[in-house]
């Protein structure tokens, strides 16, 4: 008996499977996984050490186009009242008009305007809106890794670091030596494909 090696139906199934397993080249949408993402910062204290802090409420979305990075984009929102410096009293002071003025400016936003890529390094240029001031900055991000998660989803991660001057965002109190002007930002994001 002659056996058909591949029926047309089997070919369709096989083709579909191949398409599914091939890396998707088009732009893909991701959302920030807030519990596996970190926005931390450190700033000089009295010129002798660094004080560390983080923002715990992060929200954001990204569109990643591996083949055409220019078509990629990022939007991030950070709730200022989620600041955590391991001192409740200091957190309250940081939220006061002396620093972030969290009741007047409750959210900080970053919106990308340009994305470029060289290997695993992604240069994300965008507008940071903080304390009512908008500034353009470029943040280099390294791709940490990508892959399937145990729940059937797909994740990818980026790690970036940049430095801003708080005085440029009109956060100038305590610049006379108590708290440094330069603030280093440490940005680690785990993104879940939507």
């Amino acid at each position, binding site marked *: 008996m002659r056996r058909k090696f591949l029926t047309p139906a089997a070919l369709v199934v096989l083709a579909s499977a191949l398409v599914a397993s091939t890396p998707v080249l088009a732009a893909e949408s991701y959302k920030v996984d807030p519990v596996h993402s970190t926005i931390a910062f450190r700033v000089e*204290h*009295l010129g002798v050490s660094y004080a560390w802090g983080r923002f715990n409420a992060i929200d954001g979305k990204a569109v990643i186009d591996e083949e055409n990075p220019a078509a990629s984009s990022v939007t991030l929102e950070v709730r200022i009242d989620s600041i955590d410096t391991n*001192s*409740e*009293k*200091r957190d*309250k*002071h940081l939220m*006061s*008009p*002396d620093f972030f*003025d969290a*009741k*007047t*400016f*409750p959210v900080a936003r970053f919106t990308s305007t340009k994305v470029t890529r060289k290997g695993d390094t992604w240069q994300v240029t965008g507008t940071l809106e903080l304390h*009512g*001031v908008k500034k353009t900055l470029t943040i280099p991000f390294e791709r940490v890794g990508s892959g399937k998660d145990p729940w059937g989803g797909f994740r990818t991660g980026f790690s970036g670091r940049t430095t801003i001057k708080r005085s440029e965002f*009109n956060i*100038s*109190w*305590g610049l*006379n030596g*108590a*708290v440094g002007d330069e603030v280093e930002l440490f940005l680690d994001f785990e993104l879940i494909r939507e």
Partner: protein
Amino acid sequence: MAGVLWSTALLPALVVLVLALVASAVGRFSWWRPALAGGVALVAGFLAGVLAVVGGPAWPPVDARSWLFVLGPGALIVGLACEYVGRPSFDRVATICWAALVPPLLLAPLARHAWGPWQAAAMFLATAAAIVLLAESLARLERRGPLEMLACAFVFALLGAPLLVLGASALFGQLCGVLAASLATLVLLTITGWPTRAPRALVHPLATLGAILVGTGMFYAELPAAAAALAIVAPAAAAAGVGIAGRRPGRVRTLATAVLLTAVPLLIAVVLAYRAYEPPGSYGY
């Protein structure tokens, strides 16, 4: 430290001194009233200090420190208008209209992000009432004499500074210090015979700036509401006390009554704020 001393105390005092003396000299001309010089000098000196402490304002103004640059001169214009018109009915209407205008501007971020419409309306009303109360109290003191009003306002600003620092806003405490330095110059000038016969134009700027500073401490930082309320009623206590003390009790006694009755509620407010203030521990600036 020298920079802080310069921006908080010396610069505003110097600006007030120069402007007050120049304005007095110009005041010899008929179109100018020397009485107005106090208001102009105070607002200019205060804003020069604010500028040195926090830098230029954002435009359009969005936060309390930016509003100082708009509402300070705005209050001065209202004060100058009241001085020129010189009618109590105009004064009353202008004060109420001005007091109704300030809170929606100053508290807009909270109304937008944190409060419902009823809470916002209640807070606007309370803040407007605070401005009217401060203006009315200072006006009553001013009717007893410029020095009574200026000394009371100086004590208000002087004790307001530590009050705001304890209320988790060192910046606005520093700005209260700027106001105290500006007022100190006017107090000294008045004691030495500077021709401020009727500094009515000072009432609205002082009431507005006082309400903004205390209100910012309460609404945007951690100043307890009871402490803020005591600060606002302090000049009213002084005005009432001076009235009760008698019609002609003697200059020194009137002045001492005004200063003491302003200081007592503010000192209680400082104690309340201190008790609400968590002791420093590992957090040290």
